[in-house]
């Protein structure tokens, strides 16, 4: 099942982080480190987990590739397909909906010329509508990488997108 993982290598800093995380678990329970390592892998390799990346992670933890695939496909923060540089996740659950999340989503769709779930042709932005992110008291909100943007208004969204474009923002968690 293993595909060629030779071209994939963590940077030195990433590898140090990975080793540190592995050391947190009993030596016969290294698999516990899988989810944190997949986050690092996703940040290192273009914001998504290719089969090659997952095979590489499996080889580090000395587990079967399938064990990585089944975990990666379960959790919504892992992207199994390429995404734009900047992943925009707007919450649409109850409290955010009550405070106008649908207006925010519409506005971003119009602004970017794409629908929820799509990526702009230049590869800059991917737009997702997501479920409650624990920011209900500061609704509506969106998450971009690790950053929470709260109490959104149309104006605030416009300013943020200008800023993302200017700094060529990449959304990463690690």
């Amino acid at each position, binding site marked *: 099942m293993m595909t060629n993982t030779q071209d994939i290598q963590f940077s030195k800093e990433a590898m140090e982080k990975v080793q540190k995380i592995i050391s*947190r678990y*009993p030596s016969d*329970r290294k*698999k*516990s*480190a*899988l*989810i*944190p390592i*997949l*986050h690092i892998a996703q940040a290192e390799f273009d914001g998504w987990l290719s089969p090659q990346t997952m095979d590489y992670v499996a080889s580090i*933890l000395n587990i079967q590739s399938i*064990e990585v695939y*089944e*975990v990666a496909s*379960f*959790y*919504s*923060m*892992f992207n199994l397909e390429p995404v734009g540089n900047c992943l925009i996740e707007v919450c*649409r*659950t*109850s*409290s955010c*909906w*009550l*405070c*106008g*999340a*649908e*207006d*925010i989503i519409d506005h971003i769709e119009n602004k970017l010329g794409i629908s929820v779930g799509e990526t702009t042709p230049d590869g800059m932005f991917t737009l997702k509508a997501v*479920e*409650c*992110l*624990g*920011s*209900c*008291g*500061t*609704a*509506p909100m969106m*998450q971009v990488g*690790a*950053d*929470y943007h709260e109490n959104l*208004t*149309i104006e605030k969204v416009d300013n943020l997108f200008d800023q993302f474009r200017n700094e060529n923002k990449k959304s990463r*968690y*690690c």
Partner: protein
Amino acid sequence: MSKKLLLKNDHIPGINTLATYKENGGYAVLTNALKNLSPDAIVEEVKKSGLRGRGGAGFPTGMKWSFLAKPEGVPRYLVCNADESEPGTFKDRYLMERIPHLLVEGMILSSFALGANTSYIYIRGEYFYVANILEKAIDEAYQAGYLGKNILGTGFNLDLYVQVGAGAYICGEETALLESLEGKRGNPRIKPPFPAVAGLYGCPTVVNNVETIAAVVPIIEMGGEEYAKIGIGKSTGTKLISASGHINKPGVYEIELGLPVEEFIYSEEWCGGIRGGRKMKAVVAGGSSVPILPTELILKTVNGEPRLMSYESLGDGGFISGTMLGSGGFIVMDEETSIVKNLYTFSRFYHHESCGQCSPCREGIGWMERILEKILDGRGTLADIDLLWDIQSKIEGKTICPLGEAAAWPVAAAIRHFRPEFEAYVTNPDSIKDIKHYYRLKN
């Protein structure tokens, strides 16, 4: 009833650092307890305090702790549940972000009480920046000798780690959380065995919510009996409430249990009333899974008594006319809110979050979501409302974990209390044209 135990120092600049936390009395309780109290004495104080789990179910913490199996030569674990994904709930995030050391101190105290030498804080992946704040606090605690080997010269060893999740509400369910912590899919386990006997890596484990563990610090500080005097009846102590929706002052509030609901909603000290001077229509009092109540029932019980913020008072009337305190996710809706659309957002959420192991949950919730979508779309029939009722009634008690119920209860309650609105959607849409099922920003 303003009484602050957990958030009393949350306004102090720099309270997230060890130095400022210590200047304000931080780690004094731990230092004193490690030197002067036995683990069993701490468990005893927690029992006396009457503290109930703040993660949602309200199970007495001291009792849970006393169930922990203690076989010789087998490690025990304490795992803190910081997955906080129940819609409407954001109090744990606030606590961890503002006063991370309170959780760290609570984890050390509780680990000592339970005899755990390795403990984990499992935090939802989206709270990545909060995980960093915790890591920093933990590093500081190691440097100060509160963590690691031979803590404060007492011979007690503890390693504390933060583990991030990756976006799955179900990992808040304690056995799914343990699976996730073991590096697997978050599929809840069949119980028994309970984690107290076979939890993380098959070893005895206690899983507690962030707020529960933080509350151990003031309990040990003042003693269980004193803590039990705060609050009302079996709802002892204070509770963090996440208030959101159509109120003037959304946010996290620490209340003394027993505060009247009406005061909480309308007083300037708390939510500050309904936005735009509108009337209130309904409240979801304890996170998305608890039954929604219309204004008359959230303010007063059917016997006409004022409803209080407590486990018992909110539960008064059972599911016919009452609800639950749950996680304290308090969502307020004004008179223009579409109850059907709100419910749809919940069903969509639960459908998305079902782990898929049990067919009533996996299929039933998706079915409910699609029917609600159809009703909102103007294609529904009266028979669809009965069908919704029928489906929700066939989920409860037939699944591995309570997520199925968490998805069914809101549907039952919305139909029970707002059936005319469901009917209007299918028979007379004109009559509800003032209801916003598409919610505009400007209020």
